């Protein structure tokens, strides 16, 4: 029997750019066992949430993740609104959807940037992708006043408004700036033969490991909470498709992300052209009710699930957050089985783990 060597992919290495340790055993030059150790970025969000009031919690839960902040507050607000039986105004639902979709674009661009860096892509390609991300951040800044950690949601509506027609016009024109980077990514990055068949995840494995988001959709599972169960926010009123692929490899996961960006751009066009008039928030502010509730939204990386209990004093008594990376971690282990050590960073990047969401 050949000796087993244990190799760590340590935190603070530029390979994955996150403080997360992935340790794997090598046998016959192939990965045989994978362990993930966490704890570098844990901040105790659930513990802190119990100490603060609802208003402060909106700000706190937003800081779980800097890549998908709105998916967290959206989930929190929807859970509390379902508890209080509040129907938010249509304009608020559209604005929430708008921010969520721009966020999806900028979140999906990040693994592409990661891929370009891994494959030593030309600096012009890298620059194009970075510029696309800057464009998405600029759109968020136009709408909310901040590039990252935009405090948009409040219980019963939103805090920002799209008042001027010029802003909508500028945003529409900015949507065109995503075409070239996406073509470039498809043309040069996804041509690499190396990506084909790499990190395979069968649809049965995806099913059994509870994979979610683009990882599940790349393995042929058409799962998306925006469509399932009637959707939420303004999604039932928008026309969009859920791209799926049956190949289940690294290439498929990136292709799904690019297709999702294109779908998001379609949705943003629809929202900007038919933004309903009306109030931004429920007036008077909704009366919260104590009780237990659960809610889920489709974050860029997959399902984001909140379960909480509100006490009689309207303090959070108990809260359980489940983020997409938690679901996808088992799938990631399956993908890494039998991989060659040089492919490990590529496969990890294709699953797009978010350590900030994962550890909280």
């Amino acid at each position, binding site marked *: 029997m050949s000796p087993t060597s244990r190799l760590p992919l340590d*935190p*603070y*290495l*530029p390979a994955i*750019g*996150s*403080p997360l340790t992935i340790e794997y055993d090598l046998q016959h030059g192939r990965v045989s066992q994978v362990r993930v150790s966490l*704890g*570098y*970025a*844990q*901040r*105790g969000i659930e*513990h*802190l949430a119990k*100490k*603060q009031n609802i*208003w*402060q919690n909106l*700000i*706190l839960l*937003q*800081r*779980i*993740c*800097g*890549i998908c*902040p709105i998916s967290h507050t959206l989930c929190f607000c929807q859970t509390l609104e379902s508890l209080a039986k509040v129907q938010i105004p249509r304009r608020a639902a559209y604005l929430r959807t708008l921010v969520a979709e721009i966020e999806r674009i900028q979140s999906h661009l*990040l693994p592409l*940037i990661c891929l370009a860096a891994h494959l030593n892509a030309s*600096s012009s390609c*890298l*620059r194009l992708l*970075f*510029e696309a*991300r*800057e464009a998405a*951040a600029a759109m968020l800044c136009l709408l909310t*006043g*901040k*590039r*990252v*950690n935009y*405090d948009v949601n409040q219980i019963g509506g939103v*805090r920002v408004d799209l008042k001027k027609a010029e802003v909508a016009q500028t945003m529409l024109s900015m949507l065109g700036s995503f075409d070239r980077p996406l073509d470039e990514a498809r043309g040069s990055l996804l041509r690499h033969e190396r990506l084909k068949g790499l990190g395979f995840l069968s649809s049965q494995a995806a099913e059994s490991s509870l994979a979610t988001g683009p990882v599940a959709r790349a393995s042929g599972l058409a799962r998306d909470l925006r469509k399932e169960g009637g959707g939420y926010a303004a999604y039932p009123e928008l026309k969009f498709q859920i791209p799926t692929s049956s190949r289940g490899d690294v290439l498929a996961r990136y292709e799904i992300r690019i297709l999702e960006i294109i779908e998001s751009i379609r949705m943003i066009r629809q929202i900007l052209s038919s933004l309903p008039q009306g109030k931004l928030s429920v007036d008077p502010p909704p009366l919260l009710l104590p009780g237990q509730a659960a809610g889920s939204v489709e974050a860029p990386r997959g399902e984001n699930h909140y379960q909480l209990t509100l006490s009689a004093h309207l303090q959070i008594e108990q809260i359980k957050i489940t983020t997409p990376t938690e679901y996808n971690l088992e799938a990631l282990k399956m993908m890494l089985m039998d991989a060659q050590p040089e492919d490990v960073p590529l496969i990890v990047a294709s699953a797009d783990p*978010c*350590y*900030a969401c994962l*550890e909280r």
Partner: protein
Amino acid sequence: MNVAGECSSPNDPRYSQPYSVFVFNAGGCGGCEFEVLSLFLHSQQSEGFRCKFVSQPESADLILLFGSLKREAYQVLKAFLLRFNPTCQRLAVGACAIAGTLFKSAGWIAAPCAGTAQGLPHAFDSSWQNPIQEFSPNLYVAGCPPTPEDIWQGLHRLACCSGRLSAEAARGVETNRIEFHSELCLGCGLCQQICPAQAIRLSIAQELAVGEAGSILVEFNQAACLFCSLCEQLCPTGCLKLRGSGTLIRQRPQEFVVRGCLSLVRCLNCQGWMVAMPKDFIKQTLGSLPDQRWLELCPTCRKIASARYLKTAAEGLQHLHQLIQERGC
């Protein structure tokens, strides 16, 4: 700013070499990470000064640190700090690193740079002590997250410090993002109550007393501020404004604090201290100023007085007529 080497001209060979930056992510939401990544684009678009990210601490000109630090990550940071060149510059980025903000009350989280901010506090909590003293940054860039322009400007300034850039190239104005109009403030303390980062403090400041009157000191710690604008939304008089732009780069964390002073006056009736009423605001809201004596009563005495005056509707009306006659309008 302490300029340690000769200032170089754009023709200097050192100017064209990229500035090597070692990024240490102590663990946080990842917001700072993306803004730091945007430096790549700034560097690509820049004419002269460029930076590059390095993975070996030995070859770094600058350590860039962000995020809230956990015990596990602290061990890693400590091991890294031994490997840096002693002349290496240190830059702290973001509210978590400088002040701990939201997460410091979780107990085991430390703001890696707050140890150097003795005396003034990250979030005005005297019971909380930062265990980490090793990392003393040369420059602080605040924000949640800071804008890439600010981080880029911070890099410029540190490059200038080590003689890589001329002083002219790194000059910038330091502006605030919080605007406080003390003449409008009621001193109600709503902002202090709601602030999730505990970045606002109202305190009695005897040392700032003018004459006999005391005063209330209002402090806004921009280093801890998350710019969530809850305070701005709740402020009844609008004395607090968050601006969209501003340059939050300072050499010491203490300099991030914006201060305002509310003068205290004695109540006409009970002689207790109270915040002087913001006359401009009252004039704006009511259209005209009420009786001067009315403004010099503390809230409790004002309630009692109004209850007395308005014992009956007739008496109330009579009082109103009296007031109008006195003011001659």
